């Protein structure tokens, strides 16, 4: 019986295997041969993986809605800390003012 196999290819040693497409085949070995023919014929891959689609657990539309990105999550992201630049500037201004006050008081 034919079934769908998902194909993952690695472009260079050390890179992750990325999903590139799928093939229809009677068994895993044939799926691998087909994947080589279909995907590695022109494009260069150093490694291919095939896995039967029925073994892949995918995110369903209901799941996707449940991944919550609705609350304020700036504290998790780099851009949430842009305020540090302001803080750094304010600190430098304060140090300059303190230094000026010291110099003014000395003579």
């Amino acid at each position: 019986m034919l079934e769908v196999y998902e194909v993952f290819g690695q472009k260079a040693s050390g890179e992750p295997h990325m999903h590139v497409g799928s093939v229809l085949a009677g068994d895993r070995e044939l799926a691998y041969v087909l994947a080589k023919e279909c995907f590695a014929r022109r494009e260069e891959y150093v490694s291919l993986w095939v896995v039967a689609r029925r073994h892949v657990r995918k995110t369903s539309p209901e799941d996707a809605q449940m991944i919550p990105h609705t609350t304020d999550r700036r504290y998790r992201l780099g851009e949430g800390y842009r305020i540090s630049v302001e803080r750094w500037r304010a600190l430098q201004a304060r140090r300059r003012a303190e230094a000026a006050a010291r110099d003014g008081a000395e003579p």
Partner: protein
Amino acid sequence: MAQTEVERTEAEDPRLREFEARIERGEKIEADDWMPEEYRRQCLRLILTHANSEIMGALPEGEWITRAPTLHRKLAVLAKVQDEIGHAQLIYRVAEDLAQPYGKTREDFIEDLVAGRAKFHNVFSYPAPTWADVGVIAWLVDGAALVTQSSLLETSYGPYARILKRICAEEAIHLKHGEDIVLTLAGGTEAQRAMLQGALDRWWRPLLHFFGPPDEVSPNTARAMRWRIRLKSNEEMRQQFLSRYVPKIWGMGFTVPDPGLRRDEATGRWEYSDPDWDEFWRVVKGDGPLTAKRLALRRLSHEEGRWVREALARPKAAA
């Protein structure tokens, strides 16, 4: 170190030459590739020290989740602790594949950790008595960790290199979070500034220790470099850390507790006073100020979570 039977046999193995040629060409070694026993052992040791440190590193900051000064800071510390435990999960998985010939799993790694048989970074044995410590940890301890981890992005062991990409991206955010806490205190009241200076004073020596002693002459290190498991020496990384952070600390108007610290303008190298390497050795061998207490806490979580792990290991358990 005396060569084992395995190593002697391996030295004559034609696969060793091919393995070294692959590394020479800049190829990555994957979990199911042939590798010399010593390569596997060294990778495993490095990777387990990293994983254990992620877990132990969550503890000093975890103590501050309930005490963070604002809701925003509380969320940020909580998210960071969650990231660190997440890093440990990713890294233990890489270690499990490496340890497969020894039949070891993460349960064994954590048993080793809580029994005090495993290594983790020195810094996680020190107390974090004030909120400023939380800022200094996230800014400078994570900053030091990022120096080490980004030097490993080019490691020859592929699975580790790949997860490090993701880990380093998250560490970079931890650093910003820490820097923001530090800048807030630096721009604050005299009490806040004194608290920050106190934390810098406390953490300076452990931070210098973090990268390990400068003179690494062991044959293990030489091999780790040749096989590109590690790419930078301890001292190279410490110098990088000093170049990156000392000017910032000074620029904020704060000091570090080392009157001997200076940058040699001619060579560009930082000179620092001897930071008492005996203390470093005591701490990494398990005798740090809070090593026993933190391990006991980790052991408690491990025991209390056992029923969850057991339930998860039974795939068709009734809900």
